[in-house]
């Protein structure tokens, strides 16, 4: 998430990692809200070959009148809650123990973009991980002529090579700036600003790859950050993170890249959900009956527990 830590992150770990993750989302409403209904997507999921959720819990204050848990189209954990009574805020706490162990990237067996197109046509499926869902424009990551032109400079050789090059260029060419954009910013606007946060860089990379005909999706999750040498880890200093998954053909399948840090997703990346863009995996969406606005706050802790043998 934070630039400057990239170097330490790039040291590949051969062993898995075990984390305790804590997330605290809090919202204060200016005016008391009547009924409200939300969907929350913050619980990590067990993903074969990537991570295993050892334990997880999610709690709300006040206690919702209704609560249901289900998996959405992309397999993400969703908790739907509703409040019937008047309330003046919402507190969400998630804690989870997750072990992450991603495979080492092997040889690049991905096809060039022409062959990728043919391999794509041969995928006869609308399953949640079928590449077709991730090829066309979506709300935040529309196909944009300027972004496509920018991405085209990376398009040579294999699909994986194209993705890595674009990931590194975005990391190099764009400035991390938490003030420049909001959760509603679209890829095209962030691209013109040349700045933004993980969400924006991911959207730009997704839009660029789609413009080249490469299926690309949005991954939401957490990132372990390592404090500068000699400084203690600050409580709640982390934030939710986002990166990109790329379909690299029949054999290479989905691979994940983090354009904010210019790297592949590593064992420091803990996945919450997949979607076409942010709007599919927003941590919280909701409809609130209130006359006023709201102030939200987010605190995240990603604490390594102990090394775990793969």
């Amino acid at each position, binding site marked *: 998430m934070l630039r400057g830590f990239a170097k330490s992150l790039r040291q590949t770990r051969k062993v898995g990692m075990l984390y305790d993750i804590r997330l605290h989302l809090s919202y204060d409403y200016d005016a008391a809200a009547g009924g409200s*209904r939300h*969907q929350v997507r913050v619980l990590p999921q067990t993903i074969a070959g990537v991570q295993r959720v050892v334990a997880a819990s999610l709690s709300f204050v006040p206690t919702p009148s209704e609560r249901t848990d289900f998996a959405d*189209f992309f397999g993400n954990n969703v908790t739907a809650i*509703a409040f019937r009574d008047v309330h003046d805020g919402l507190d969400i706490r998630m804690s989870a123990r997750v072990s992450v162990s991603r495979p080492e990237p092997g040889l690049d067996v991905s096809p060039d973009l022409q062959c990728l197109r043919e391999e794509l046509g041969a995928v*006869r499926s609308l399953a949640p991980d079928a590449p077709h869902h991730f090829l*066309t424009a979506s709300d935040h990551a529309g196909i944009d002529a300027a972004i496509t032109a920018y991405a085209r400079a990376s398009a040579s050789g294999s699909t994986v090579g194209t993705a890595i090059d674009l990931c590194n260029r975005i990391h190099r060419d764009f400035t991390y700036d938490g003030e420049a954009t909001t959760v509603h910013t679209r890829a095209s606007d962030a691209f013109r600003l040349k700045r933004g946060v993980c969400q924006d860089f991911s959207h730009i990379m997704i839009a660029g790859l789609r413009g080249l005909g490469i299926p690309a999706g949005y991954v939401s999750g957490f990132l372990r950050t390592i404090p500068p040498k000699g400084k203690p880890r600050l409580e709640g200093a982390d934030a939710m993170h986002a990166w990109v998954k790329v379909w690299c053909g029949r054999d290479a399948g989905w691979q994940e890249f983090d354009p904010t840090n210019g790297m592949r997703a590593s064992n420091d990346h803990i996945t919450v959900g997949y979607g076409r863009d942010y709007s599919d995996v927003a941590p919280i*969406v909701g*409809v609130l009956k209130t006359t006023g606005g709201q102030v939200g706050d987010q605190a995240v802790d990603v604490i390594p527990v102990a090394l775990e043998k793969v």
Partner: protein
Amino acid sequence: MAKGNQKKIRGKPLRHSLLEHYQPIDGVVDEMVDASGNPRPAWAPFIEALEELGPEKLGQRFARADQYLRDAGVYYRVYDKAGANEREWPLAHIPLLIEDKEWAEISAGLVQRADLFEEIVADIYGPNRLIEKGILPAGLIAASPEYLRPIADTRPASGHFLHFCAFELGRGPDGSWWVLGDRTQAPSGAGFALENRVATTRALSDIYGEMHVHRLAGFFRRFRDALIGMAKENDGRVAILTPGPLNETYYEHAYIARYLGIMLLEGEDLTVSGGKLMVRTVSGLMPISVLWRRLDAAFADPLELRPDSQIGTPGLVEAIRRGAVSTVNALGSGLMETRALLAFLPKISRALRGEELLLPSVATWWCGQDSERRHVLANLDRMVVGPALSTRLAFEDDDQTRLGSALTPEERTALIARIESDGGGFVGQEAVTLSTTPVYVGGWLEPRPASLRVYLARTPEGWTVMPGGFARVGLSLDPTAIAMQRGGQAADVWVVSDRPVERETLLPQEHDSFARTMPGSLPSRAAENLTWLGRYIERSEDTVRILRAYHVRLAETSDPDMPLLADVRDYLEPFGIDLEAAIPPGLIGTLDSAVYSAGQIRDRFSPDGWLALKDLSKTIHQFATTVAPGDDATRAMTVMLRKLAGFSGLLHENMYRFTGWRFLEIGRRIERGIQIARTLARLTRSGAPDGSLDMMLEIGDSVMTHRRQYPVRAGRRTVIDLLALDPLNPRSILFQLERLKAEIGLLPSVGPEGHMSVAAKEILQLNTAIAVMEPSEMSAEVLDDLATEIGNLYNSLAKAYFG
């Protein structure tokens, strides 16, 4: 009809021949006449009957149809540069006639198509075998905005995705019918088809009676019964969901709701509780198990579909996933309108059903496939090319859909380049020529291109086809001009038999069992709008009365600043009524608000009531530009009072005395109570200018009564006695309180059984307190407080019933 032959026998044409100038286009089929110019069998007696009437009578007859549509207030909404406008329904007076033998073929083809569509949509949101077998490209479906992922793997509670479909047909040059487009999202126009029928038969009732035309009512009855049957299975009610009065076909939603006796709701009327869809009514939350939605699926639930939707119901998708409600059609069904799908239907039909399509679609090629793309590029001049994922009909979409032969060389090069780089985004379709049908223009019949919309509804016995429908007819020979938004016309469709047909009506027949059913629960939003309608109408009337009393005096005096007039100006100013203008903008605003409130609940209004209200609003707007203060304004206010009385009379005499009427009445009584108390406080206060008491009597419409009741000049005590405390004077405060007590007592109970509601307690206390008061106790302060207390009554009611 024997007279037709006499004409020929005598050898001299006695009659005006309607066909004299009728010249169909070469190479285009005409519905009325065959290739040699002779009327087709179904049309011959019809034309003859029209000719017999002669141009003068025909003109009168058609004017009668137009009058009906105006009286019924039939409109549709058009969006143009000036914004949204209501436009009168453009009826083409000559119906399109189709023989029932031919109709049977159309019906069979469409039933097959609807069954096929059900199988396809159930497969796409289910096992996905068509994609697995490579018959449908996964990329095409995944790219469609109508493919709703939150619905995937959800079987509809009703067992079916499609319940009500419409198909747009055109007849090609070889005489056979083609499907131009499919409507599966939320097909509109069925209600307009009914209104077309009513209007056309107003004009041509005798001809309609003599010809054997299939009736429409049975179709609607069967569908209504099917909906109610579905709802009963799930232990809930049926409702129609509309995007609201700003939608282009809102009139139709209200009309169908009224015609079928089904609740008309907006998204905010609904809420999801415990996974069930509920309507907020004045009797509490009631379950809805069948929702006939007239809004596009994407807007149905801001939580899981379009987050920017202001007209949806959060949680609806969850209720659907849990099987608690069936939507008609199921969310996601709009996918079947996708233009590119037409290219795959023949193959799918063979694969799924082993059948050829009985009614072909317009030939379509999806450019996402190599050989198809090459075919489109090689035959561009014969093609219409447009967006593959579009759900609009080609002739309604000329911004993005282009005729290959009409492109400039530059446009052509650009289009070819786009098709080559993004083939999946385009379809090519054979350019179609539509058949022509007659319209009546200045005494003659002339040919115009037409397309036909046919409706199918699912019943427990399978699909039922509306025998008739809705023809869109061009204003010129240009086939793109038949879209309603662009100034096309609509014609009735008569399916004609050579034998007598069954006469069906929606009303139960005499031999049917008879039971009086009470109206269903009143949605809270409708109750709120009815209450405000009552308040706005009453507020207008009270204002008009004060204005009239003011202008009468202004006309008679040489001193516009005499104390009484100045006092009235000061009194009204804080209420936004500025007497500088003869017709104060505040009054116009109040009447506009009344129209707005009524417009939110058009399904609950008779056409007469609606027209009377529109007339009130039209009149005040006209007066605003023409009327001068004084005498002129006095007369204008008298006109307004008469029209207001007319509207009130309509409501009073014609509205069924149930919960809806009660809220309207409560609104009126609350407002009148407030207005009289306030005005009385002002005009009877100590130090009020000379003439105030007489003016008060005039405003309270009680001059005559006062003269009869009290053998003295108007004094403070007698005026207060008559206008505050006399229980027999319909303008007195006490009278309003008595009425309020009675009506509030009859409202549905809220809260624990046997407990009085807050509003009921308040009105009882208020009524009792006033009933025992003496005129001398009613100071201006007491009267002002009373106005406030009556206003608070509204708040208690709102909290209990409108929340």
